[in-house]
């Protein structure tokens, strides 16, 4: 039925099957939309956040998807600025993943603020000293850049390509994509960093506070490093899942292996600095504010196990796998490493968001727990449904993977 829209020379499932698949996923999206609507109409009392937990699952999710979406800018940077040619086979997909991550982050932010209609105040009445203002500016600008990067691919659609103006516009945009990639890199560097800076500057929250360089706390640099280490792993992971679902090879192994190697080295670099930062924080920064390292982990659910899980199991182990040739070449180990790497960055964002707020600072204050309401879960899970739908539509109607034809001869 939609044959005329499907790229030439590739095979796709029947239209009926596709509609069924999209409809099933849309149910999750609808459930999320119901939760979101309730929050917009009735207010944030629909969530389980409270005055102790001003940030909850949504901010954790925002930070996590932005970190995982870093694959888009970083792959673009490696492909268009550094000039690693092999990555042209995966850069389209990385851009789509980035687009999904950033658009959902913006949507969730629109849900998370108490007065969404005043969202523009952040731009109009900017406090340039606020890390959050920097995040808002860079995310919004970078989302525009991602749209521009996605556009040439969208215009590659078989039918849209027939319209000369659109075809030419897409072609000319693609010709100067390096300019957009460079702008995206600049913006991403600052917003990934500022997301970390957001917590590092909280000098009255000793669990999050870090010293730093000039106006940037160390978390600024650590968040950039962890994002560019996890982003490529997330791209690999989603490519693998897409290959499993479509039952096709879409990207050659050497491209994946290259991305995995880059991810591994960056993860190693991140771990080195993260461990150094933790040692300095535990021995200098926190004690200066009257806290010992163990004060942050004793007598509460977020014990030392979470720290070990983040740095050890989801940090050191994937780094070892990604850095050894045998680990990278074995598909199961590779996917496990990518999964652990991504989990590590999600835990890191969770720790900085939830654990920072959960730990009482006043000596006579108590530890408060928080568990998201169904509205928060539903709207968060809807992001996954939204991602599946965008990827499914893009995969079906756009030439996302340049190697697909070669790897799947008719």
């Amino acid at each position: 039925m939609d044959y005329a829209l499907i790229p030439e020379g590739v095979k796709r499932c029947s239209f009926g099957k596709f509609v069924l698949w999209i409809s099933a996923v849309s149910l999750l999206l609808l459930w999320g939309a119901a939760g979101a609507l309730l929050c917009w109409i009735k207010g944030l009392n629909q969530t389980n956040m409270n005055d102790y937990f001003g940030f909850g699952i949504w901010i954790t999710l925002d930070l996590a998807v932005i970190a995982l979406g870093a694959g888009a800018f970083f792959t673009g940077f490696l492909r268009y600025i550094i000039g690693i040619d092999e990555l042209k086979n995966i850069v389209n997909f990385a851009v789509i993943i980035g687009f999904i991550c950033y658009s959902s982050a913006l949507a969730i932010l629109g849900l998370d603020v108490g007065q969404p209609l005043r969202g523009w105040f952040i731009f109009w009445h900017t406090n340039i000293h606020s890390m959050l203002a920097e995040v808002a500016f860079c995310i919004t600008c970078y989302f525009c850049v991602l749209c521009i990067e996605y556009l040439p691919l969208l215009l590659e659609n078989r039918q849209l390509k027939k319209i000369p103006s659109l075809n030419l516009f897409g072609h000319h945009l693609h010709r100067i994509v390096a300019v957009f990639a460079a702008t995206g890199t600049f913006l991403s560097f600052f917003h990934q960093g500022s997301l970390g800076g957001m917590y590092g500057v909280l000098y009255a929250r000793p669990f999050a506070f870090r010293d730093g360089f000039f106006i940037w706390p160390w978390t600024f640099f650590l968040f950039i490093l962890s994002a560019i280490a996890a982003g490529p792993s997330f791209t690999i992971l989603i490519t693998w899942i897409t290959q499993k679902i479509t039952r096709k090879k879409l990207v050659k192994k050497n491209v994946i292996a290259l991305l995995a190697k880059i991810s591994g080295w960056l993860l190693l670099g991140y771990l080195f600095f993260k461990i150094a930062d933790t040692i300095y924080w535990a021995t200098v920064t926190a004690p200066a504010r009257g806290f010992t390292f163990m004060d942050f982990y004793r007598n509460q659910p977020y014990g030392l196990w979470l720290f070990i899980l983040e740095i050890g199991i989801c940090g050191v182990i994937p780094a070892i796998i990604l850095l050894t040739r045998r680990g990278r070449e074995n598909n199961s180990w590779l996917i496990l490493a990518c999964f652990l790497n991504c989990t590590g960055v999600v835990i890191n964002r969770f720790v900085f968001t939830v654990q920072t707020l959960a730990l009482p600072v006043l000596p006579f204050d108590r530890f408060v727990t928080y568990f998201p309401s169904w509205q928060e879960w539903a709207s968060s899970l809807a992001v996954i449904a939204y991602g599946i739908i965008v990827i499914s539509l893009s995969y079906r109607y756009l030439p996302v993977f340049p190697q697909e034809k070669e790897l799947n001869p008719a």
Partner: protein
Amino acid sequence: MFPFCFEWQWDAGHFLFMGSLYMVLTVVGLGLMYAGIRTFLDLKKGDH
């Protein structure tokens, strides 16, 4: 965001922060304009 917003101050911080923002917007805008103008010129050339 603009000099007429009352939070605005003519200081180094605003110069750097807003300068970067407007630079990015200019680059993105010019890029889009370039693609638009080239498309227009190519289409015109094709007509003749």
